Structure formats: C-alpha cells, structure tokens
C-alpha cells in the first residue's frame, strides 16, 4: 500500500503512467495511432528531444538552464557535412569532429559560467547569438549534402526493426541514469543545484562541475544534432530551433525542479515521449491553426497538473 502511494508521488512514474494512458486511449480512438510503426516513429522523434534533453536535464539539475541547445544542434547538423572528409569511408571522422565542436561550445559555455561568473542562462543565450553569427557565415556558403554513411545509417537503419536513433537514446539514457544516480558526479550536480554554497563548503568544486555539466550538455546537443541530421538527411538553418523549448519542457514535465537540485532523467524520458505524442495528436486533429495551438497548450497544462507539481518548499 505504502509503496503504491509513494509510486504515485513519484513524478517520473506518474509521467510514464500518463504516457501509457494517453497511448492507450489514443490507440482506441484514433485510426492509425496505435499502429506499431506509428508508436515506433513517435519514439524515434522522442529520441532527438530525449538526447538533447539529456544535457539539459543535467544543467537544470545543477540549477542552470541551457539556451544554446537549439543552436548547437543546428551548428552540428550544418557543419558535419563540411567536416566529413571523402577519404573516410566510415564517416566516423566527421562525426568525431562535429561532436568535438559541439563539446567545445559546451565547454565555452561552462568556462563563461565558471570563470566569468556569467549566469548560465545569459552565457548560453549569448552563445546562441554567437552561433547565429557563425551560421550567417557558414550557411548557404557551399554546396554540401550529407553523404556521411555513418550519419545516414544512424538516421535510417533499423537493426531488428528498431530504429538506430532509439537505440542511441537507450544508450544515452543508461549513461545519464548511471551518471546521475550511480556516479559521484551526479550527486555533486544535485548538491550544487540545491545549495551551491553548502556544496562548495563540502568540498564540491563549483568550477569543475560547472565546466563538466555544460560540456556534457554541448556533447549531447551535438549528438542530437547528428541524429536529426540523419533523420532528415539534410541540415538546414533552424533545424535545431524546435528543440530548445521542447528540451526544457520535457525536463519539467518529467518532474525535475526548474530551480535545480531535485529531479531525475528517468522523468525526462517519458516527458519527451509525452511531448511528441501531444504534438502528433494535435497534428491529426483537423482544426484551424489557432485552435490547434490552444489545444496543445491546454494539453500541456493538463499533463503538467498530473506530473509536474512543485513540491512545497
């Protein structure tokens, strides 16, 4: 009895329950929704949000917020083809370079936040602005198509019928869950998020962990960028934009406190699925754009009521 009650107080579990509920109801009422292929597709879409939100979860847990996620995704998707040399038949070099760039951007965010003491929200916002400038130079400059085999494989392959993107998300999820719950660094992030001063006086290095968390966020945004590039076979300016707010929304819908210090990636996972599901539901409803927007907002609010209560502070 007690375990059941505590499960219902557990935001990740609640969010998961909600996803299941929405899927079951929608499958019975909407044609085509419950098809295996459709649900699999929803998961594939959720994978991009989920991976982008992996870094976002860490940053939010540590009390910050990363507004450069969208820009990093775009930059990775745009730059990857440029850095995929023809002599590399696997395409891994291009991926490595693109990930290195994304990670580097994250590191720079971290350096700004740690050394210049710029609040993460401002640092990452400024970074997003820089990257826009970079895109003005890069975009439309040269004729490049994605011929990187590894990226195409990631976007299109379905080993055992499971899209590669979902597998990648699974791997990322395990890594992040391990990091948050089974590694010392996860506990340090949480402590810093809840009370940076007390954590610092307990020997937790603010500098090192700030650098780390933003670097990770950059890395995962880059990974999401590669996946989204593979899925669309073409990068374009603006490809990452939708993932900024959705990555934050997925985190919060998963019950993680936007103020930091409390939450888990286990909630972000169903949070991401919930978001794509809602979008898909709204797409198939035949209504005017205004009404669709209203329905989307109302649904988010309703879902939030169930899953995202802020605990009394």
């Amino acid at each position, binding site marked *: 009895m007690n375990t059941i009650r505590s499960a219902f107080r557990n935001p990740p579990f609640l969010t998961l329950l909600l996803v299941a509920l929405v899927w079951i109801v929608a499958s019975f009422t909407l044609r085509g929704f419950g098809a295996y292929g459709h649900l699999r597709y929803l998961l594939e879409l959720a994978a991009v949000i989920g991976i982008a939100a992996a870094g976002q979860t860490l940053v939010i847990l540590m009390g910050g917020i990363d507004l450069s996620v969208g820009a990093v995704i775009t930059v990775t998707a745009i730059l990857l083809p440029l850095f995929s040399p023809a002599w590399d038949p696997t395409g891994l070099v291009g991926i490595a370079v693109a990930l290195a760039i994304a990670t580097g951007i994250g590191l720079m965010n971290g350096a700004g936040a740690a050394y210049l003491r710029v609040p993460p929200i401002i640092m990452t916002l400024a970074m997003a602005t820089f990257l826009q400038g970079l895109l003005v130079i890069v975009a439309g400059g040269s004729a490049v198509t994605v011929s990187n085999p590894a990226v195409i494989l990631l976007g299109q392959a379905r080993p055992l019928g499971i899209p590669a993107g979902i597998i990648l998300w699974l791997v990322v999820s395990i890594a992040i869950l*391990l990091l948050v719950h*089974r*590694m*010392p660094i996860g*506990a*340090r992030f*949480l*402590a810093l998020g*809840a*009370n940076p*001063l*007390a*954590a*610092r*006086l*307990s*020997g*937790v*290095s603010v500098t090192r962990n700030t650098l780390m968390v933003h670097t990770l966020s950059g890395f995962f945004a880059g990974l999401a960028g590669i996946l989204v590039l593979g899925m669309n076979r073409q990068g374009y300016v603006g490809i990452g934009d939708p993932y900024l707010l959705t990555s934050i929304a997925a985190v919060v819908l998963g019950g993680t406190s936007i103020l930091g*210090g*409390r939450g888990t990636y286990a909630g972000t996972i169903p949070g991401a699925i919930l978001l794509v599901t809602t979008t898909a539901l709204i797409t198939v409803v035949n209504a005017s754009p205004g009404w669709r927007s209203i329905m989307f907002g109302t649904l988010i609010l309703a879902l939030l009521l169930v899953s995202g209560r802020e605990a009394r*502070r």
Partner: protein
Amino acid sequence: MTEKRPLLEARQVFRGFFGNPVLKGVDIALLPGRVHALLGENGAGKSTLINLLSGALQPDGGSILVEGKSVGRFSPADARAAGIAVVQQELSLTASLSIAENVGLGAFPRRFGLIDYRALHHGVRDVCDMVGLTEPLDMPVADLALGRRQMVEVAKALFRKPRVLILDEPTSSLSAHEAGILARLIETLRDRGTALLYISHRLNEVQALCSHVTVLKDGVVTADQSLSGIDGEGLVRLMVGRETGDLFPPRLAAAPGAMRIRVEGFSAGVVRDVGFCARAGEIVGIGGLVGQGQEDLLLGLYGAIPAAASRAEVSGNSGLPANVGVANAAGIVYVPADRKHEGLVMPHSIASNLILPSLGRLAGKGLRDRQAENGLVADLALRLKIKGDTDRQVQALSGGNQQKVALAKWLPLDPSVLLLNDPTRGVDIETKREIYLMLRAFAAEGRLVILASSDTPELVHLCDRVVVLREGCVAAVLSNDEITEGAIVGAAMGITTTTQGEAA
C-alpha cells in the same frame, strides 16, 4: 500579584506533519507582565507551537484563544492585529530590502495607501534605538552580519507594539553584549505589562529572565510551573527529566602534539595581519564580538575565500590551501555556523548530506558503492545518535540534529584539523553535551579543533587557548587560567589589555 487573565492561550492543540504527530494536546497560557519560558530538546515542537500561536500554522485540533476568546482561522495578519509578535528562529527578513522596510514589513504605516516613510522612519528609529541597532536605516539587510540581523528581527517584533511577544531562540547568534541589551529590553517590556514567551537552549538566560516555565517533551507538556526557587540544576532536571552530570566534560591535561597551523601576516576578508599557531590535540577558541572576522579567519584557512599570509604552514603543507578541495585533501574540514544556508543541502536527504564529502572516496571504478555508502550512513547515524530514517529530508530535522549531520559528514575523512564555527548554536543541552564530548574526544585523538563561538562559557570550559579577535585583529591570546569570561568579553570589547598580540 492578582490573578491575571491570559492574553494568549493554546488549549489542547494538536499538530502533525505528514502523519507524524509533533504536538499532542498541548496547553500554554501567556499572562501579561510575565516572562514565560518554553523549554524542550531539539525537535520537541517549540517552534511549531509558536507558529500555531502566531497564525503561521493551523492546529489540527484544539484551539487558540486571545484574551479568552477562541479565534477561528488565524492568519499572521490576524495575529498582528491581535497584538502578537514573533521573533522567528528562522529569520524572516528580505535581504535586498532596507532595515527600515524589513522592520515595517507587514505592518507599514500608510498614508493614502502608500507607505508613510516619514512615520516609518520615526517608528523604526525608536525600536532600533531600543535594541541598540545603530546602522543606518536605509542599509540593505544583506549587508548585516547574522547577529545584527537577529536584532533587526527583534526590532521588527517590537515595531508591532506587541502585547504578546514571542522570542524563539533570539540569542543563538547574538554576542554577549547584544544579549545583554535584549535581556534589559525584555525586563522593560515585562514591567510594561507585555506577555512574553521565551525559548532558549541557554538555561542561564532562562533562569535570569523567566518566572514561569513550560516544558515540552515528545509532544506533551511535562512541566508547567513557576520558576521561583528553582536553581540551575533543577531547571536542567525539569527539562531532561533526570539527574544529569556536568554540561562540560572534565578537562584533561593537554598534551599538544605536532604543529598543525602556523600563520603569520594572515589576511582574509576583514581579518588583517593576524598571526597564531595551533598544535595537534588542542582546542583553540576564537572569541570576540559577533562579526569581528572569526568566520573570515576560518574560511581563509579553509581556502574558501581568497586569503594571503606572509608565512603559512597548515596541516603539514606550506602555504594556505588554494581551495576547499585542497583543504579537504589535507585533512582540514569546516562546519559553518549558518547550517541552513552553508552547512547543509536542506532539500536533500540526511543520507545524501552525510556522504557528500566522501562520495569520491567511496566510489570504486567510477561508480558509487551503495553498500559502502549505506554502511557509512548507518554507522554515522549510530555514532552521532541521529534518530530516524536517514532518507528523510534534512530540513525536516530539528536544529540540533541538523547540526549533528553537518558535523558528522566530515568524520569519514578522518580530519586532522576541524574548523568549527559556532557548532552549538541553537542546539539543546543534551546535544550540546554530546558535541562537547565529541570535541574533547577529537582533541584526545590528536586532532586540532579550532572553535569559534559566540557562547563565551563554551570557550572558557572547552578551550586550551582562546584567540580573541577585534576588528579583524588579534586583541588577546588567552591560555589556561587566563581564560575567564571576564577576560574574553573585556578583550573583545577592547576594555582590558591582557597579554597582547604575542602568538603562543
């Protein structure tokens, strides 16, 4: 004395949190012109009771009566209207607002709907004079040291011209001087017919000020009686419910070991050009009025704020630790005074707080070792008598138990130097005794304990040496027989000139 009608009463009040009963049918009656003491160990429910009396919480059962009339739903604003004011244990100030605005908050004088700053100024000036707050009234509270903020809190209560004044551990962060001002204030108010409720873990204050006592234990009243004819020991007996030994453990012959700290020309924060040294096995006290650089001295030695020294040798390394990580690695640990903001991660569990400093040490191959961690937590809880489930949030613990957690988390590091900043602030007498015993044991094990304290008797009875700071400089270094309350307070206030400067 004629029989007076109680101004404020609680009758058979019940209150619990998340199903745990804290108060189980408590009665208390506050009479005008009487200072009423409310005693009980940490977590007995004292603060909860006053929250009920002041409308900050609603009772689950029972009733609150003002002048004999039962009030229904009672909000803090209603309580103010009824003349009830509280000096909270947890400060209720807004850091970015000025002293004047903080004092007036919730009770502003108005003119045409606007705050009447002129009237506010007069009113606040008066109460600030009463409590000896000489800071400019436009100063943001953020700029004040903890003790001064506490005085603002008192001024804030006085500003409401209360007929009932409730003080929840008002002296826990006050210096002796400020505590004296407060004591005289309480007497004045009592003589004017105010009903006062006084909560403190410092029993000498209770004895000096109060004439009646209510003792809470496990949510029920175990004593409600006059204090006349009861001496200090009787008071302790009343509170603890049994015979107790001395508060302070007996002093052993000091056997100082190797040099652990030697600094010269040390500056950090407001501390300027200080020199002193301390050896293993010693308890070295840092005394002085509140805010004379005690904290900066400890933080500087801990690598937490920028510090410089012309010569420094700390824990076997030459030079000051560059940051907290280096300090910890050298076996130096720090327990802050403000446990809520600096000592503990309040929303996290007791267990996570306890293992935070040892996370890295316990992890094997990069992954945390849950078993080892659980073992460690259980062991620490046992050793420090931290009761209950360690998965609870640490903010649900009472002050004393929080303090134990803040101290206990360092033990797995086997520290060689403990920097303690007012470790017994707001801690009940039993826990205090436990902490004192621990400090003695630390010293006996060959560790160095540096103890900054605002509680002068603590310095007198525990320390082998006391460094008294005044305006960031060493005003006196007292050792052995020189350590008396008079000498410490005198040096702190710059009155007497004891053996000056010369580092022992």
